């Protein structure tokens, strides 16, 4: 071992650090956002749907809330009721940085954490305002309570449903030295008949999308989605 060799190691290590920092995408700032407020861009009532304040009994986990703050810069959770008293829960969560530890949580993971058992999990398409959006349909059961979920994630402006689509989008952004942002769009409802619930959710999503401005629509569906 010579001083020359050990200096060589030093420069190798430092070189790797500098090079990796150079190609590493810079995180998007959380505070300086031109991202619009979800709270104000999602209407309270539209096409007979109306948001009600009192929610279902929710179990509050302070630990979980703390870590959610690190991931999401905005969250929105509302319960809408239509004239027939049909209920839909709308949950939106926006995170500015979709890196692996800070990515939006998938409902497949959130529901079991709250005591639900995912009984079915299917990838599908949802026709929203003339666009085909890739979505996932979930059925979560917790003892005698069954909840049906339709969701998708808009990552870096593209709606995806699967993990592969998500990772691909992450990778595409990293080639440009960027980190994509991500929005989780989730609707859920309580019921027994899967077909009826998914149909109701489809109606709700279409009603909602038809009643937001163009910018919000792009945010919710993805700009480049087909």
């Amino acid at each position: 071992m010579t001083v020359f060799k050990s200096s060589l190691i030093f420069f190798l290590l430092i070189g790797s650090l500098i090079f990796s920092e150079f190609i590493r995408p810079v995180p998007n700032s959380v505070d300086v956002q031109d991202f619009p407020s979800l709270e104000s861009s999602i209407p309270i009532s539209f096409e007979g749907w109306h948001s009600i304040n009192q929610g279902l009994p929710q179990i509050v986990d302070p630990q979980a809330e703390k870590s959610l703050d690190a991931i999401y810069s905005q969250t929105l959770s509302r319960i809408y009721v239509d004239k027939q008293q049909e209920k839909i829960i709308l949950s939106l969560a926006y995170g500015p940085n979709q890196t692996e530890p800070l990515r939006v949580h998938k409902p497949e993971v959130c529901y079991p954490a709250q005591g639900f058992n995912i009984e079915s999990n299917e990838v599908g398409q949802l026709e929203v305002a003339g666009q085909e959006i890739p979505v996932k349909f979930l059925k979560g059961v917790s003892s005698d309570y069954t909840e049906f979920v339709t969701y998708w994630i808009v990552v870096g402006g593209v709606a995806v449903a699967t993990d592969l689509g998500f990772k691909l989008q992450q990778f595409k952004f990293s080639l440009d030295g960027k980190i994509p942002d991500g929005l989780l769009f989730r609707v859920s409802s309580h019921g027994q008949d899967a077909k009826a619930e998914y149909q109701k959710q489809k109606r709700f999503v279409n009603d909602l999308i038809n009643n937001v401005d163009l910018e919000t629509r792009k945010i919710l569906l993805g700009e480049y989605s087909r």
Partner: protein
Amino acid sequence: MRLNMSRLDVYKNKKVLIWLPIIAGLIFLFTPTYIELYHIFWSKDEQGHGPLVLVIALFLFWQKKELFLKDRELTGQSTLGWSLLFISLIVYILAKWQYILVAEVAVQIPILIALILITSGYSVLKRLWFPLFFLIFIVPLPGSVVDAITMPMKIAVSNVVEMVLYNFDYPIARDGVILQIGYYKLLVADACAGLHTVFSLEAMGLLYLHLVKRDSFLRNVSLAMLIIPISFVANVIRVIALVLITYYYGDEVGQGFLHEFAGFVLYGTALIFIISTDIFLQKLELKLAQKKARRAATEESDIDSF
């Protein structure tokens, strides 16, 4: 005399000149990684053992520092070392580029192995296996692994807690991972399932085995395996403690200071279990050895009588 002294100084200085760049390089290389690790994982409860493992590992390396100060003849081993170093650094760069923190942290182990191979050779590497192995416990568990194991463990823990308290006539009911006792509903959270506690207890258990220098292979292996049921039981005890605290003193007390206290209860019970299991195994082994010796003795006396 003076000549000798200065020669020694020169020798020491040379050693410092060799090691200083390597250590400085390592510190530069991994400081950003540890800062991120701190922000994302260590500041949360689940991976709270991380900093402790790091300090212990550094201490274990420091204990063996004299290994690095000897001159050694190295032939052939450094080629392997250099290639490992290059591959590891490429992995490090890719991991940072794609924000895969797990790989970024894990790759420090092959980097250290490579540097030890280059500077000191295989024999030194062999003597440093434990601190290197111990560093595994710094690597945060990948999210997918956590998700896959956490749920069944949570259900099992809640199940056992319900059974035990029900048998003690507490008004308890369970629905999935939600326990209801009296007026209170408690969600057995991910942290309580104890995947991470299993991880840190495994670390503590293996450190314990290393420190007491158990030479018995049987005891090493059985204790390493028993750590999993032990930490399961310790977790059940912790959740029972939390449920009872909430039942008797209310929700706020249960979620406040005593929540932390229940964590200490967990580690305490687990440590006691580990040590007593080890003592038990030790006694068992001793008995087996005695039996063997006695049998050998009787066999011998049998032969004598003939």
